[in-house]
């Protein structure tokens, strides 16, 4: 028996050591101009007309380009940059947008950028009508006036349109025509392939593992200077593993490192931190139609009962900033009102005014499960509400269930509070305020709030072409929201990007700091 056991152990040792010795020990720090990113999720589709979530955006920004985009670091629309468009004019009635296209731009499939490709891209996105297509809902027709001039006509004025175009990626019309099957506008092909004009071409996509992209030699900006030439976007679902990978240098950028790890990594010279002020606000949205939260005094009491300092300084180590109102202060249209304060006495007083001086009711709070901030914040809140005699029941739900619970036809089944964050899609306050607070919005961010005055102002802002008048309207809207208190703005999602020390420079997208403009990456040694 002993000899059998010994032989077994020997076999196991050989089985373990042999491949290890024989393997090219490739894991370890990559060299040269390869940039590796660790991401928590992968895109579900590569189609630029459909992909609208964070994982898709991180990929689309490499392979595709829009007509215009926000200049790095600012949302001000006066600083919009032309990407595929060199200049543009807007008619005085706000209905006609004329774009002059950049000459000499090539798509990855070899075809040239022309007005036809813009027309096909926009019409395709509008017809497929998924993802971000809602920004094109006002588009009436698109005309190729000349090979490098495109005119878009709207059916009604939509002032944020120019900013919204940052979400519309231009695809090669040749590719659409070539791979069209049964009138599907090449959706089948675009799901797994790409035909963009962006700096990087998709080389391979191993589902569930990684995407590999390489520099497009004919990219119109050229490749002089220090750029990453190959990108590997790896799927690594565990935050702890992401941290290990970026510490060892095996990965250059990790997107889901927890706040505690970020603090711990500050001691590590092999890792760099880059903090960008956030534009997404974390809200605890309240069910304004369900008693007792239907009473605005109760809602205001809850606003005063949230322990902001405990959350931001205690748990998050100051890595997030306090929110101020329903719009992030990074927007030029911010109303600069007074931020909320934690004041239990005031909360008690407000509850007393509403008839609940001893509390005595139970609220349910629902949040999206994996995000630790939301879980921690909710627990801290529950503890404070105990002091007011209010019981807070928590439930973390998968995303689909959360959406369903929120919009249950039976209001008794709906939760009282929902914890989420809304990230602006583009640089106008319309991208946050309209979907979240317009009474008829079907966007997932909307939760029962309805105020006809706000509706009217939102609609009017969309039609107001004069920037300063529009800003005045948005300020009024924000003030009204503060008075109505549909939710508790908690904190700004300041994005902290963690890089390996090799990365000497990387610009983040202005509206979504978790997206890096890969072209701007510079790698040292």
């Amino acid at each position, binding site marked *: 028996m002993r000899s059998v056991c010994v032989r077994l152990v020997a076999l196991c040792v050989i089985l373990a050591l042999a491949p290890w010795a024989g393997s090219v020990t490739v894991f370890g720090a990559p060299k040269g101009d390869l940039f590796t990113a660790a991401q928590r999720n992968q895109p579900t589709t590569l189609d630029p007309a459909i992909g609208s979530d964070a994982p898709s955006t991180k990929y689309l920004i490499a392979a595709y380009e829009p007509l215009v985009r926000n200049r790095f670091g600012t949302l001000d629309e006066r600083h919009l940059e032309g990407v595929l468009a060199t200049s543009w004019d807007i008619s005085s009635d706000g209905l006609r947008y004329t774009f002059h296209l950049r000459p000499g731009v090539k798509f990855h499939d070899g075809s040239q950028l022309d007005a036809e490709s813009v027309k096909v891209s926009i019409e395709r996105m509008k017809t497929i009508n998924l993802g971000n297509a809602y920004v094109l809902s006002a588009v009436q027709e698109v005309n190729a006036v000349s090979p490098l001039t495109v005119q878009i006509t709207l059916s009604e004025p939509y002032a944020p349109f120019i900013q919204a175009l940052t979400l519309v990626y231009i695809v090669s019309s040749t590719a659409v025509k070539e791979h069209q099957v049964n009138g599907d506008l090449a959706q089948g092909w675009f799901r797994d392939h790409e035909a963009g004009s962006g700096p990087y071409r998709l080389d391979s996509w191993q589902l569930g593992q990684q995407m590999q992209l390489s520099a497009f030699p004919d990219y119109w900006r050229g490749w002089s200077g220090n750029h990453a030439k190959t990108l590997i976007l790896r799927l690594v679902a*565990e*935050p*702890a593993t992401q*941290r*290990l990978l970026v510490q060892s240098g095996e990965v250059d950028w990790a997107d889901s490192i*927890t706040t*505690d*790890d970020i603090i*711990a990594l500050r001691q590590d010279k092999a890792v760099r931190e880059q903090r960008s002020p956030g534009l997404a606000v974390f809200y605890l949205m309240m069910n304004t139609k369900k008693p007792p939260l239907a009473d605005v005094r109760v809602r205001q009491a809850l606003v005063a009962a949230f322990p902001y300092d*405990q*959350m931001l300084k*205690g*748990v998050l180590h100051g890595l997030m900033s306090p929110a101020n109102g329903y719009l992030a202060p990074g927007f030029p249209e911010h109303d600069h009102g007074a931020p909320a304060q934690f004041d239990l006495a005031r909360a008690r007083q407000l509850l007393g005014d509403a008839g609940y001086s001893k509390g005595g009711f139970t609220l349910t709070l629902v949040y999206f*499960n*994996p995000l*630790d901030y939301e*879980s*921690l914040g*909710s*627990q*801290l809140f*529950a*503890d404070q509400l105990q002091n007011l005699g209010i019981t807070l029941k*928590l*439930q*973390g*739900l*998968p995303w689909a*269930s959360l959406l369903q619970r929120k919009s249950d036809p039976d209001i008794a089944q709906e939760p009282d509070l929902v914890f989420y964050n809304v990230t602006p899609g583009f640089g106008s306050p319309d991208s946050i305020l309209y979907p979240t607070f317009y009474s008829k919005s079907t966007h997932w961010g909307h939760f029962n709030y309805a105020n006809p005055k706000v509706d009217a102002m939102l609609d009017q802002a969309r039609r107001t072409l004069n920037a300063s008048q529009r800003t005045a309207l948005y300020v009024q809207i924000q003030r009204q929201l503060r008075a109505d208190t549909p939710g508790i703005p908690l904190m700004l999602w300041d994005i902290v990007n963690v890089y390996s020390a090799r990365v000497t420079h990387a610009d983040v997208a202005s509206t979504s700091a978790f997206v890096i403009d890969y072209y701007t990456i510079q790698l040292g040694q």
Partner: protein
Amino acid sequence: MSSDTRVRSLDVAVPQQRRRRLPRALRRLLRDRIGTLAGVTTVVIFLIGLMAPVLAPYGPYTPSPSARLQPPSASHWFGTDELGRDLFSRVLYGARISLEVAVITVTLAVVLGCAVGVVGGYLGGGVDQLLMRLTDVFLAFPALLLAMAFAAALGPSIVNAALALGLVYWPGYARLMRGQVLSIREHLYVEAAQACGISTPRLLLRHILPNAFDPVGVRATMTGGYAILMGASLSFIGLGAQPPAPEWGLMVAVARLYLLNAWWYPTLVGAAVFITILAITMFGDAVQDATDPKLAQQG
């Protein structure tokens, strides 16, 4: 080594001999020192669960954000968690929740499984075949996948997770009971009872079930152990206990985010899970060894 080949006759599940078998099995169990230790540990954990509110130095829910993730110290034996709560107290309360899960799961699995098994085994024929196919369908599901699907459908909570696990484990009991019933129903005393004109439900409940029950008891301890482990896995995925519940699985799931900063946090909670399940399974094993009539014994 010499093997003692004294042959033991197969114990027949006749009522009188059962009473004699028990003390003999108990003696065998006590001779197995490790098994006894495991048994004692299991009982201790059970008691801890029951008496957690008395034993715990702090409440399990009071956060103290200024004292987060502290290492073990005199005032906090296991340190503190991500919101500054005392980990030792939370682990004690966690025993309570694990106990709940084990009890709910095992009860549901045993009741449902035995009902199906006894009915199928006794009635035989088409009913038996149908019930056995139903059992096969449930058995064909991987346990975690089935539990996940049920928990997602019912809504994430620790009770729903326990119920979902009960729905996962009942087929084992159905098969077990059916096997037992099949061998028992041919016995003379059953025929005698039937000759007396006893009604079928009474026959099943009073005569067949008690005699068939032995292996179920042993298996129940194992199922309890697995239920705790699976409950932890469900919490890991997010379909089980919800914060701020001090459920062990949920705590390990959250603690893994802090593994590199506060290694004692997931280690100590993981150790609690580990010791509990180890004790339960070793105890179950020892009991099975002690009551299995087919094992040779040493002197």
